[in-house]
């Protein structure tokens, strides 16, 4: 399928100030915790002090004696999930892996899992009452390490989890929740052709998305049972679906209003507190607010799978890859939720190779259930593949970018996941990286350079858009996708492009679930592509309507009307109506001007990125300084280039943090020892140089504006770029992340 991809733009590609900017620099913008409503009380969640235990009893009597405690809840207030399925867009979800995260049922599987909740008239009273809830536990042996958990004699988390992907289906339950393997070609024949084979195992720790805004919500229920939820989320419709399933309240009773969102990166694509607030509101008859503490965010909201990736790559002496073999083990925490499928499918997607084998194992441990983080599943295997590619290039005395150019996938190549590539930007990005001035900089003593390349699939899925025209011709663009990084600006720019009017006349708004048709959540790098696609469709429908109205006023056929620069034009330019004039006459030409679009985007296209990192290692302390950092990424088309750069820079720095510092540190009891920003150290301004960016634009041949999606691929190349640079600078080979100063120092001194 091919379509006409627009290449000459008037508004798209410019850098206007974002429409929601004023509210955000003045503090007016309302985030999750910023709403207080009349009669509101406060919920507080009681959490498990143990990593694995049976809940024998829960006694609220002491808590209820405190004046001002108005409601309590536990899993008894939620429907038993059984085998209930939650309808998803393309795959259904199992309620039993969501419901216990909201309230543990009979058993706790990780430290700080929610067990009960109370609501009281002040936040401090609710916290005090929570301490009075008596929960009796029977402590069970726990297991934290994936290898220990995979053993036959390991403490078993769930007696109803049988390893998926094994034939025949096992009859004995296991902590190994899934296994899969994909193959193409003949892996043994591939290695037989190789002149050089390198095999390494790279380990990446569990980390957190680290959004600055803790989860927060307010829920209220009216006398008819209508549920109103205000919350910070990547998807209001997702909150509606999940909260309905978890509470057992009909989906039609919900209205969810997304607040501004203070970061998510995948971490706000599920619910943690909304169902609790709803039940407490139902039981107390009062609006209930819950704000998670930072500590609870770290302990009990979705961290990211740790992983162990063994990779073996074979090449000929002239630098052609002959075989890629990878095994990845991912820790999913206490429930099956890891991105093991993308990890297995995408790890080697940058390279043309006839013989690939890739396998994955998902293991359950007594840790918090993992959840999505930017390009879920891709950074971990790509770290291993890319670091080995760098090592191979060095052994062959080849420039690492030249080596990649020799092996990079291009249009027509079929990757392991089976969908042939159309036009893609990997080679262009590699060439741009190579010619960047940073790549020519001369390295000094104790300095090193690393390259990383990456792929991400990007999503399409369902979106809707509504456009209304006011009587003075101003345009309201309504969508249902929370604006997590400037998407209102890109929605407005795309509407401006179609309508031919300046972006300043367009007001983009993110609305609640009652005010727009369904939209899948903001994630998968899909908003600009899919919701933008819906906006383009709606704007095109509006242009048709405007032409029809002009035709009626002039008594001409619609075919004689052209839409040029925001005006209806006919009779070789002698007849002109501006959009504002048509809007003013709407009442006599057919009624209010509006357009609605429903869109199921099947036109997603992959993104590729290349990063180059230069570091200096202090041999006395093991500290790493980033000297120069370059991100090159194929955006397809950058609708608002400044926010595309922002996605590249933000992803790069998250990856730098993951490479150098960030890791979950559990003690032997399974408690997270670093549940705060002081000890879970994300990069700060003084850790970094400027992050240089080069946007490549190889248009997505399936999207009217060539858009691909930019949010996720950016986190994939930093880890290998940084790790290779550090290892090279220090003359070491550390494969166990993060490369924190003690680890680097120990390797230097070894």
């Amino acid at each position, binding site marked *: 399928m091919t379509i006409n991809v627009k290449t000459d733009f008037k508004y798209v590609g410019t*850098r206007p*100030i*974002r429409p*929601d*900017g*004023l509210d*955000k*620099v*003045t*503090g*007016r*913008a*309302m*985030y999750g*915790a*910023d709403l*207080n409503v009349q009669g509101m009380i406060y919920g507080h969640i009681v959490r498990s002090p143990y990593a694995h235990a049976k809940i024998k009893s829960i006694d609220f009597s002491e808590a209820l004696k*405190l004046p001002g405690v108005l409601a309590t809840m536990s899993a008894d207030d939620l429907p038993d999930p059984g085998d209930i399925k939650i309808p998803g867009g393309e795959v259904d979800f199992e309620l039993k892996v969501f419901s216990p995260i909201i309230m543990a049922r009979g058993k706790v599987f990780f430290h700080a899992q929610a067990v009960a909740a109370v609501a009281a008239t*002040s936040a*401090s*009273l609710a916290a005090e009452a929570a301490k009075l809830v008596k929960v009796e536990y029977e402590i069970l042996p726990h297991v934290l390490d994936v290898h220990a958990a995979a053993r036959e004699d390991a403490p078993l988390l769930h007696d109803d989890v049988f390893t998926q992907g094994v034939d025949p289906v096992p009859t004995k339950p296991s902590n190994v929740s899934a296994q899969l393997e994909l193959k193409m070609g003949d892996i043994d024949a591939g290695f037989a052709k190789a002149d050089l084979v390198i095999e390494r195992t790279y380990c990446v720790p569990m980390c957190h*998305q*680290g*959004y*600055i*805004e*803790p989860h927060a919500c307010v829920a209220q229920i009216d006398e008819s049972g209508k549920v109103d939820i205000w919350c910070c989320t990547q998807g209001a419709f997702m909150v509606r679906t999940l909260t309905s399933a978890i509470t057992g309240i009909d989906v039609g009773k919900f209205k969810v209003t997304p607040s*501004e*969102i*203070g*970061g*998510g*990166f995948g971490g706000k694509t599920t619910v943690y507190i909304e169902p609790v607030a709803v039940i407490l509101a139902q039981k107390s008859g009062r609006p209930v607010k819950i*704000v998670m*503490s*930072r500590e609870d965010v770290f302990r009990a909201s979705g961290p990211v799978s740790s992983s162990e990736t063994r990779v073996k790559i074979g090449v000929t002496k002239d630098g052609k890859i002959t075989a890629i073999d990878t095994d990845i083990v991912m820790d999913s925490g206490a429930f099956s939720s890891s991105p093991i499928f993308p990890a297995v499918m995408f790890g080697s997607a940058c390279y043309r190779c006839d013989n690939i084998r890739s396998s994955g194992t998902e293991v359950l441990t007594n840790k918090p259930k993992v959840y999505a983080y930017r390009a879920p599943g891709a950074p971990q295997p790509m770290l291993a593949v890319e670091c080995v590619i760098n090592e191979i290039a060095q052994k062959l005395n080849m420039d690492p970018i030249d080596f990649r150019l020799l092996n990079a996938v291009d249009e027509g190549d079929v990757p392991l996941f089976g969908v042939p590539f159309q036009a893609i930007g990997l080679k262009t990005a590699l060439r741009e990286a190579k010619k960047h001035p940073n790549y020519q900089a001369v390295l000094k003593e104790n300095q090193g350079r690393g390259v990383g390349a990456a792929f991400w699939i990007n999503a399409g899925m369902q979106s809707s858009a509504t456009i209304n025209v006011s009587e003075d011709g101003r345009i309201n663009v309504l969508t249902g996708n929370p604006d*997590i*990084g*400037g998407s209102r600006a890109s929605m407005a720019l795309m509407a401006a492009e179609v309508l031919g009017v300046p972006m300043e006349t367009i007001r983009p708004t993110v609305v609640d679930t009652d005010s727009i048709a369904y939209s899948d959540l903001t994630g998968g790098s899909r908003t600009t592509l899919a919701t933008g696609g819906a906006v383009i469709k709606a704007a095109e429908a509006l242009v048709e309507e405007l032409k029809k109205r002009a035709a009626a006023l002039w008594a001409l056929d619609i075919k004689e009307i052209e839409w040029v620069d925001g005006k209806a034009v006919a009779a070789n330019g002698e007849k002109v109506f501006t959009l504002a004039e048509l809007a003013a006459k709407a009442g006599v030409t057919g009624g209010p001007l509006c357009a609605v679009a429903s869109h199921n985007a099947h036109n997603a296209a992959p993104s590729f990125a290349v990063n180059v990192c230069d570091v200096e290692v202090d041999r006395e302390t093991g500290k790493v300084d980033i000297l120069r950092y370059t991100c090159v990424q194929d955006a397809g088309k950058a609708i608002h280039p*400044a*926010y595309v*750069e*922002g*996605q590249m*820079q*933000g992803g790069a*720095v*998250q990856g730098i943090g993951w490479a150098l510092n960030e890791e979950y540190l559990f003690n032997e009891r399974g408690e997270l020892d670093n549940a*705060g*920003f*002081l000890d879970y150290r*994300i*990069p*700060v*301004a*003084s*850790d*970094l140089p*400027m*992050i240089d960016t080069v946007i490549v634009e190889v248009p997505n041949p399936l999207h009217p504006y060539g858009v691909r999606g930019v949010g996720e691929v950016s986190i994939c190349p930093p880890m290998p770029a940084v790790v290779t640079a550090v290892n090279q600078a220090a003359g070491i080979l550390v494969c166990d992340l993060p490369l924190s100063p003690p680890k680097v120092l120990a390797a230097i001194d070894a």
Partner: protein
Amino acid sequence: MSKQRKTHVSTTVNGEPCEFLCEPTQVLSDVLRNNLNLTGTKEGCNTGDCGACSVMLDGALVCACLVLAVEVQDRDIETIEGVAKEGKLHPIQQKLLEHAALQCGICTPGVVIASKALLEKNPDPSESEVRYWLAGNLCRCTGYDKIIRAVLDAGAVMRGE
């Protein structure tokens, strides 16, 4: 909980006299947000690690989550709500917008307060000085690049360059 009397506090917020009643354990960020409805001051950690609650207290940059509300009696507090004056943005606000130096925007009020404090103290900071000054303001979205450029640019505007 033993019934504790709330404490009455008189203070000045953004140049205006202000009174509130607070529990002895309440911190300033909580009172600003939940008693005075000044929700522009954000709470990201409540342990003084993220800087989202940065405010000025008697001209000093502080994390409002580390100040007990009862301590602000007769003090002078400036919050994000007081930065734009007479319908006009402060140069740092304007430059953050022009440089697209915010994505989710949750750290932005703190960044505005901290950067303004820097530029008032040091009108012509180096890139490195800006980076170290803002090291207490966590931003997870931007990688800081555009924020640093915006602060340097705002400094130039304030110097009349």
